[in-house]
């Protein structure tokens, strides 16, 4: 019996059979895998395998909250989406903020597992402990903002929807799942939207009013009374300027992707900064459930070439990938491109990446005007970016090719095209350059979903943060080599915990220490977990995901970086001549992890982590 943090119920919907069941959540499994990413990976491993077609009815699409989701714990309004990725073929996961996760728990469930596929478009209406499978034929084809409004009229004004746009419907492999309508909180990565589209599932709308219990309410209140003001104070800058507040800094230290990862400086960076957004198009801030920071942007462009724009504004990643990567420095145009991605339901990171790839491929003659319908692709042209976003979102013209992601595009084009494709395991790089932080190179190479800065979040410990609880008393040397294996492994384990508890990693910037996270976890669940046990749980979750990928054929050969990142010195900027020493760091990492030379967890490691049963 759960004392707090969990509803104890998972909703299982089989769209092929048009039936729904409620499964009891095992307390033993919750204790071992926590929730979110951890429990989601456990279920994925049991429900799918190498024979599973990512876009077939046999691929489960799993939405999971964590024990902190929906509680008063600050910045805990998050949930995870897990599936076998159609983009990468391995474990795919994406997480989102907003209100959907908290509302799902108030509706009575810790998670929703969608199996099978419907013959015609449907949406799920989950409310007050029950679910209806409803016809969605009339909203199929609507963008995510329109669909959200339409579903709201048919359900409850306070409902929150997870929704795909036309890109997901058309199974574009870089499609995500959007939440919260115009506020556009995205579970963007790994093509999770295409999986939802393959099931003809337009949306999952949720609403409920059930309380979410906390084991020690008084204890939690006491802790939050102390920490609340600190979070508000320390998170003030992030709230004021958003994630893009640091884009100038990121450019100055050589971390910004410029011209498809070729250049080290971007002159136009101050024109697309968070500070510039405050002075121009910002209309307000968005706070996810339980958030005290409010880094989400609300913007409006009321007139001019790129009007209208009205809703969620671009985050750092969107500005960097749609903007700097393509040498575009027009903020209004980037707000437009971002809104289009949100409406189509596209991952702005991968979308920016495939556009940059296409422009360079065109420049080098790998794509021609025959491929582009007579359009000359060139750097620094905001209209080209917007046009290509539309083509990708609608899966038409060149967009049909670009929607496959850079790995597949480069395989189709052949020749030198693979040299321009910046990805790991098929997932496009996010907007941080491993040549600026050595740990990022190792983290990208070994992240379980492909290139990802969030599954290690290591670079922030090489510039300004420390973590004494894990033995990192000083800021780490970003160009150093020694100790990176341990740094990356420990932080990946820690981030597995954040992704399973479902708490925002930006708490790290707001004065929240690991000891606070652990304290809140224990106060919410009533479990008396110590730090050693806690970190072992993170390690278990990371290894579980790695073993799932091993089942899919992943090994050392895949733990690498693109040749451009390994060998091209950019020559200018804040990390002009650094290259990540991957092989040295990788050997160090495997040794620290207790994996064999092929990057596979040993039998002894699986036993130590209690994972043997899952991989017999």
């Amino acid at each position: 019996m759960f004392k707090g943090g969990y509803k104890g119920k998972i909703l299982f919907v089989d769209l092929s059979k048009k039936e729904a069941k409620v499964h009891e959540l095992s307390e033993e499994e919750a204790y071992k895998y926590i929730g979110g990413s951890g429990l989601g990976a456990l279920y994925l491993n049991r429900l799918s395998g190498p024979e599973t077609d990512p876009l077939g009815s046999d691929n489960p699409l799993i939405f999971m909250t964590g024990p902190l989701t929906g509680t008063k714990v600050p910045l805990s309004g998050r949930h995870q989406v897990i599936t076998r990725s159609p983009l990468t073929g391995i474990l795919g996961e994406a997480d989102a903020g907003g209100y959907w996760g908290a509302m799902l728990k108030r509706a009575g469930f810790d998670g929703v597992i969608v199996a099978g596929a419907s013959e015609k478009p449907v949406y799920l209406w989950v409310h007050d402990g029950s679910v209806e499978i409803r016809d969605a034929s009339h909203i199929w084809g609507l963008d995510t903002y329109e669909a959200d409004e339409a579903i709201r009229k048919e359900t409850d004004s306070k409902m929150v929807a997870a929704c795909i746009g036309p890109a997901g419907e058309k199974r574009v492999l870089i499609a995500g799942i959007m939440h919260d309508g115009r506020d556009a909180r995205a579970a963007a990565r790994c093509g999770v939207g295409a999986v939802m589209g393959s099931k003809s599932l337009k949306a999952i709308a949720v609403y409920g009013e059930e309380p979410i219990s906390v084991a020690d309410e008084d204890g939690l209140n006491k802790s939050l009374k102390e920490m609340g003001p600190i979070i508000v104070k320390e998170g003030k800058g992030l709230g004021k300027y958003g994630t893009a507040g640091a884009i100038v800094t990121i450019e100055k230290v050589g971390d910004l992707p410029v011209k498809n990862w070729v250049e080290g400086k971007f002159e136009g960076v101050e024109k697309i900064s968070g500070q510039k957004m405050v002075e121009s198009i910002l209309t307000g801030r968005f706070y996810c459930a339980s958030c005290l920071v409010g880094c989400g942007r609300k913007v409006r462009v009321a007139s001019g070439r790129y009007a209208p724009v009205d809703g969620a504004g671009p985050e750092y990643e969107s500005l960097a990938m749609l903007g700097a990567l393509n040498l575009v420095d027009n903020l209004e145009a980037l707000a437009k491109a971002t809104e289009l991605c949100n409406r189509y339901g596209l991952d702005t990171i991968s979308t920016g990446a495939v556009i940059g790839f296409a422009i360079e491929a065109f420049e080098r003659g790998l794509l021609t005007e025959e491929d582009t319908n007579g359009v000359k692709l060139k750097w620094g042209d905001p209209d080209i970016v917007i046009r290509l976003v539309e083509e990708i979102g609608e899966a038409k013209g060149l967009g049909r090719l670009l929607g496959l992601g850079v790995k597949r595009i480069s395989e189709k084009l052949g020749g030198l095209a693979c040299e321009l494709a910046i990805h790991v395991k098929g997932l496009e790089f996010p907007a941080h350059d491993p040549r600026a932080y050595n740990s990022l190179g190792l983290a990208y190479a070994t992240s379980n979903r492909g290139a990802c800065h969030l599954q290690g979040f290591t670079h922030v410990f090489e510039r300004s943060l420390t973590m004494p609880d894990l033995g990192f008393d000083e800021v780490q040397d970003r160009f150093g080599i020694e100790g990176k294996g341990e740094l990356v492994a420990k932080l990946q384990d820690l981030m597995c915990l954040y992704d399973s508890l479902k708490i925002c990693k930006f708490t790290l910037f707001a004065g929240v220490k690991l000891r606070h996270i652990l304290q809140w976890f224990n106060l919410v669940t009533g479990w008396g977990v110590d730090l050693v046990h806690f970190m072992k749980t993170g390690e278990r979750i990371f290894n579980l995901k790695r073993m799932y990928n091993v089942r899919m054929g992943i090994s050392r050969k895949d733990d690498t970086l693109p040749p451009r990142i390994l060998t091209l010195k950019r020559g200018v900027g804040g990390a002009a001549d650094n290259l990540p020493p991957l092989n040295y760091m990788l050997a160090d990492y495997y040794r620290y992890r207790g994996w064999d030379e092929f990057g596979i967890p040993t039998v002894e490691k699986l036993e130590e982590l209690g994972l043997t049963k899952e991989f017999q």
Partner: protein
Amino acid sequence: MRLLIRYFQPYDQLVGLKEESLDVPDDATTRDLLRILVNRHPRLADYISFDSDEKQMRRLVVVQRDEFLKLEDRLAEDEVLILYPISGG
């Protein structure tokens, strides 16, 4: 020694300068420089918090020769960048 201090968003607006030259003692550390800057530009005080627990600066970062400086690092006679801390994204 003489340092060229370069301010970036939003600190350039806060101090009303893009850059300035400053004379500091030859053995000056990052902490010394920050004290000097706060004396010259009191509005910076809100952005300079010293975390005694973890020796880190949260509301601005100081970069010299591509290195993120720690509070006790000795400065070199060169340009110093005053940057917004990387947060999020």
